[in-house]
């Protein structure tokens, strides 16, 4: 097969993946920007979002038919996933990370690792090891199942994933840049103590950051669930690494870097799948991660970090 002729197709696939990675990466980068903590459990929050979306779909359909309009179901799936994931994120902050605010960073990281293992096995115990399948056919409007433009296959679901993820990125950009809360977030990320002295309730900001980041992660989980029509307890692990890679690639701590990093990683991965055997497709993300961390740990948009002596 000619790689060039596949390019437009891979571009679409890459953008789809990229949008998802960007949504996940935002959660990592927002938390890191403020707490300098790698939230290891973020992948599981994504996975839980997938399960939440599955449950909404499951509860809103009887047999293969939906009890309400498909668009409404899709919206409810995304909102439900965001709510559940957001809640889990906030709870984990409250119980696992907040007590460690002053502790050495390694402790917080280990605690996050603990949360990750706990959540993953919690889902394993209560949802089982078998994947849950999304019966999405009823969600897709008739006639829009597959759109083909000049040999490029553009499925409805890909369109949905791309538009929803880019919509969320736009909203987040607005919130961070234009609202009062966004200003408080940026201040907290620059200097948490100073922000505190200026009357910003930084605890509340941190909760908000976990809420937003986790909600976006949850939305990504559900979108991917719809796209690949399944979710299982183990998907968070890979997604977590991909999201983190995207965050690092863009420059960790930088929200726009996370978006950019996600999209680039998605495109790279889509290209790689046409070059390498599929068993090794995940190696691309790992390789990108390792290369970036070793040669340019500040990423594309991040500022170099220097320890104050």
């Amino acid at each position: 097969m000619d790689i060039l002729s596949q390019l437009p197709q891979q571009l679409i696939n890459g953008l789809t993946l990229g949008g998802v990675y960007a949504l996940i990466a935002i959660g990592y980068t927002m938390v890191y920007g403020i707490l300098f903590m790698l939230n290891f459990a973020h992948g599981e929050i994504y996975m839980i979002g997938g399960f939440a979306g599955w449950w909404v779909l499951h509860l809103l359909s009887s047999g293969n038919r939906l009890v309400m309009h498909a668009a409404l179901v899709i919206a409810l799936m995304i909102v439900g996933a965001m709510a559940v994931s957001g809640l889990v994120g906030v709870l984990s902050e409250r119980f696992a990370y907040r007590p460690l605010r002053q502790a050495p960073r390694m402790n917080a990281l280990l605690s996050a690792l603990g949360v990750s293992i706990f959540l993953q096995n919690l889902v394993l115990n209560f949802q089982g090891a078998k994947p849950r399948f999304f019966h999405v056919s009823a969600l897709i409007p008739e006639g829009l199942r597959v759109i083909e433009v000049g040999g490029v296959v553009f499925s409805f679901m890909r369109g949905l994933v791309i538009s929803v993820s880019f919509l969320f990125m736009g909203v987040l950009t607005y919130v961070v840049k234009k609202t009062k809360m966004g200003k408080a977030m940026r201040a907290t990320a620059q200097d948490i103590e100073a922000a505190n002295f200026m009357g910003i309730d930084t605890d509340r900001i941190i909760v908000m950051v976990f809420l937003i980041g986790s909600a976006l992660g949850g939305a990504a989980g559900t979108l991917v669930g719809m796209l690949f029509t399944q979710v299982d307890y183990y998907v968070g692990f890979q997604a977590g690494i991909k999201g983190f890679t995207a965050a690092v690639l863009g420059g960790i701590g930088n929200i726009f870097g996370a978006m950019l990093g996600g999209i680039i990683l998605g495109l790279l991965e889509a290209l790689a799948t046409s070059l390498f055997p599929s068993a090794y497709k995940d190696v691309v993300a790992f390789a990108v991660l390792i290369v970036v961390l070793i040669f340019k740990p500040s990423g594309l948009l991040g500022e170099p970090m220097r320890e104050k002596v």
Partner: protein
Amino acid sequence: MANVFLEWGTRRSHRVTFYAAAVGLLIALPHVMPDNYWLRIYSMTGVYVMLALGLNVVAGFTGLLDLSYVAFFGIGAYTFALVSSAQFDVHLPFLIALPAAAFITMGFGLALGSTSIRLSGDYLAIVTLAFAQIFKLLLLNLDQPVNITGGVNGIFGFDPIVILGWRLMSPVAYSYLIWGAALLAIVASWRLKKSRFGRGWEAIREDELAAEALGVSTTWMKLKAFAGGAFVAGATGAIFASFQDSVFPNNFDFPQLVIVYCMVILGGLGNIPGVILGAVLLTVLPEFLREYGAYRMMSYGLILVVLMAIRPQGLLGSVRFLVKGQRRPDKDETGVLRASTDLYYGEERKEDETSPLHSAGHRVVLELERVTMAFGGLTAVQDLDLRLREREILSVIGPNGAGKSTVFNMISGIYPPTEGAIRYEGRGINGLKPHQVARAGIARTFQNLRLFTKMTVLDNAKVGQFCRTRAGVLSILFHLPRFKREEAETEERVREILALFGARLTGYRFDQEAQFLSYANRRRLEIARALATDAKVLMLDEPSAGMNPQETLEITGFIKELRDVHGYTILLIEHKLNLVKTISDRVIALDYGRKIAEGTYDEVAGDERVIEAYLGRKKTQTEEPEQA
């Protein structure tokens, strides 16, 4: 915090008893196991003890979050599998296959470490995690096009172990082999911990930059920890493979990593008895809780979260009965309470009026020539010339942000200057790493105290001697004469230095953790630590910051003594101008990164530009600038 067991283990008679008891126990235990199933659990416990101890070197001693640790375990196991099975029809004898597995794994550890070791904390964790995932992908997929790893099915059916013609087959024999190796790992851990390596690693864990500035070659030491951990994991992997008589990718997966981490953390990172206890508990307990097996991993996650929140030091960290009783400082030998003021101000040193006037030498020891340091657009220091002469106290003063600390950071190699030359004893030292600068003979303290807070006073100072000692792994593991000689010398030297500070850093304080010292004593310990590097040039960054007037007077006298009596050459940053006035031979004033005045204190203090820098443009020539 001194540990009774460790303390206890250092006395010869006790040590012999300890080894005898341990060997006796290991011989007896396999025979009291109720059945083969429990014998197997017993052997697996030994495997986990080894694994946990290896991880303890990396994550516990050194504080490196190495998430590829279990991959090393796997590399050892698969190496063994490939060289003693029908897979490639290679059949090396066990006594060659085992070290081969260990050394090959160590090679992987070195290779991986050298690419990622300079990444800090979370970055290292995530990169090693990525390596581990690649390893797992390879294990699963390298069954095609050539079958190397056997894919999901793994490799099984290994040659039986033959040691000196004796075939090792029975479960009891395996338990002897495994626990014998575990005992070696325990002794090796112990010896490493109580050596310059152990102290260097701990210093890195506590404060990497301070360790580097004190002469610990941090990159190399971290690499050694990484390689050491890989070596133990590799050897354990080989033994495990032989014991299980098969290897599967699943044996080396993420959950396995979590289990080993939980063992190390449960016992207490760096705490050897604790880690052993953790390994035993987490291998044996699940056997009793088998009906709740489904919740095993879930509870491991909870264990991690809860431990980090309420007991990050682990089960055995700072347990009362393991910690040596400390005498209260405010009681004398008879137990009578003394007033604390007695203790601190009672033994005031007599002002020696007739102390011989020192004479600063003329030889230039340290020279900065047109040195510039720019951070992006900000030039912190510009075209600075500075000459430090032998046995001189040269003070650097200037308002906040004048670039004083940057000067120190450039000399000590933390920031490489953008332009200019730094020479020490005629030799160019720019471009040297901080630990090389320290070894060359320039030691420093930090303005914002960077002690190794969880290490004892004695160990803090001993870290300073790291760069003066040479003992390597073999010396340490086998307690060769060189190691013993160096340890004795280090101990003596460090006690000598701490004695300079009188009761403040000696006696019961030797075994006190630095975090429990008063602020002034921490400053003193920073100086002691710098002295312990056997430096000739001392750079003291605000040694009197945070001290009350009484303590300031005392430290002033002490710094003077360092020069007059002990012949140190001293570069000093200080804001308290009374102190500067009392002891400086010369003073340099910086403002906005440029030298604005140089000369005796009076010359500099009278300089208009200096007055302007401190007090602003208004003319106040008659006033002396007050403490900034």
